[in-house]
């Protein structure tokens, strides 16, 4: 069997380790930029973060090496990660519209979209109506729980 190059041996384990190394480098750069770790013999605000960063490098490199020794290869199954990406996207939209259009409308849109995403059976008009009904009930119940029972103020919307 032909020997694979390091690049070919990159799988999800080693890829995540590489991402961690990259993020860690940004963190370390920011630490060095912020202040000296030791000044006049005194430990400063970046000393401890720099130590943590060095330890993270060591652990991430160990994981990277273990990753390239694995037999598995990098593969993406869009069918598997498609839904999580959709959930992340929907949640991001929800965060962005939450304050401006208020709790009720934003939450109804968010929950309804999630309902369809987690739908077990499709093709029935009845199901769609049921989803809308359940959405309204969930949004109303959580409103009652937070605002009425626990006295938490939820936004009513800036555009209205």
């Amino acid at each position: 069997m032909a020997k694979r190059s390091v690049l070919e041996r990159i799988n999800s384990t080693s890829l995540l380790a590489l991402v961690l190394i990259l993020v860690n480098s940004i963190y370390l750069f920011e630490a060095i930029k912020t202040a000296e770790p030791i000044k006049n013999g005194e430990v400063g605000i970046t000393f401890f973060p720099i130590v943590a960063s060095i330890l993270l490098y060591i652990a991430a490199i160990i994981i990277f090496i273990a990753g390239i020794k694995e037999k598995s290869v990098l593969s993406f199954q869009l069918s598997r990660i498609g839904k999580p990406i959709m959930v992340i996207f929907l949640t991001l939209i929800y965060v962005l519209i939450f304050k401006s259009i208020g709790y009720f409308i934003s939450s109804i849109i968010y929950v309804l979209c999630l309902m369809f995403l987690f739908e077990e059976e499709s093709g029935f008009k009845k199901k769609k109506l049921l989803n809308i009904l359940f959405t309204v009930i969930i949004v109303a119940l959580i409103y009652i729980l937070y605002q009425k029972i626990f006295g938490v103020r939820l936004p009513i919307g800036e555009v209205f």
Partner: protein
Amino acid sequence: MDNLLGILQGFQTLFIPGVFIYVLLGFIVGTFFGAVPGLTATLAIALLLPVTYSMDIVKSLVMCMGIYMAGMYSGSITAITINIPGAPSAMMTAIEGNKMMERGEGAKALGQAAFASMIGGTIGSILLMIVAPFAVKLALLIKTPGKFSLILFAFVVVILAQRKSIAKGAVATILGIMIATIGIDIMQPAARFTFGIDPLVQGIDLMPLIIGTFAISELLIQSEKSSDEYKLINKEMLKQKISRRDFLPTIKEIKEIGLMTYIKGALIGYFIGVLPGAGGSMAAFISYAEAMRSSNDPDKFGTGTLEGIAAAESANNAVCGGALVPMLTFSIPGDAVAAVVLGVLIINGLQPGPRLMTTQFHLVAPMFAALFVSALIILPLTLYILGPYFIKIVTINRKILYSSIALVAMVGGYVSTYSTFQMLMTLIMGVIAYVLRKQNYPTVSLLLGFILGPMIEKYFRRSLYINDGNPLIFFTQWDSIVFLLLIVVFYYFLTKRKGVDIKEIIEKNRS
């Protein structure tokens, strides 16, 4: 004497109807979250976190105790009935319990799991009440350098407990520490790691981190699962029929198992609970292995034996009492649930430690009482009253369940500071935790790193400050030396000693 009085007053407070109802409510919520595969007691308390802001702290804490005890026990329901542990701590119960279910002895297995959980939970709670006051006295003796070494010891145990991948445990813990460094420095009025983003000056709140790590990441994991997989579980569950009268274990069965199995399991669970980051699954595993090692007939393990269920369930419920001792006295949580309960305390402005345990003991005592009552009274009662319907609660509609969790989680993220920035942080933390979970990084370590990171840094810098920057202070103070030596001892036991290969023995017995 003062402590005994305090605990009795705690029981008195607990039995006020307006307080007791919260333990019951917590227990029912915990039973549901523990029983449904994917949902955990940690998630339940994480979702409860935002509402504790406006709740009375005593009610919040007793509710958490109900969830904790129930969540630890109810994982056994699906473990026994359909061989899918509702919580990781029920893994060993699934091995024995499902075999019994296949033989038509499901109710007996469920009854035994509840009985063992009751014994383990009760012993754990009693030990908590006895040990906690002594732990407070010990905590008062530890000075700043010793506190640094103690947290260092906690980190080492948290990381080494991930025996399958110590490096991944280390990465998750350090990431938690790094996230905690964002914002104003703990000792000087200077901002760090804001990357030019103004809202980051206030740092990342504990609430978005907890909710993101446990709720949003779970939502993302669940969204991956196909509906067919879920429908199959529901179909399997609805097939099962369980009769109430079979729940009660007989004296003969208890004698056969041996009282020592329960007590040993409880003690193992309690001490594992005290160790940071270990938790219910490790306790159940070690107790099961010990029961197998000391059994007269180890060949029956893996074929559906009550002894295995008793050992595992007694241990995982005793963890609850153990995990609260370091959390309340040193701010070091023993497991994930204790870490989130620590979050409840911090968010409500309470700092665990000797002061909390002495001057504010009236807030903590009802919590001890709630744990005890949950184990001894509510747990068996719940099984007897709701047992035949347990299976139904697990079959709740998935889309309603996860849509509700998503909404509670995101609104909870907003409630922490009334800002959409922390809501966004909740999502970001959820995505980070999801990616880490996909690669088997322990997210509990991330949380522990986040909670303990600022503390270890503070003690480290303060120790150096009081000793003119000389690091030798960590090796000259007795309290610090003790914890540094403990690191060496635990390193030996957790890395050098080979464990029992349970899997191999079980496979052999089954074949």
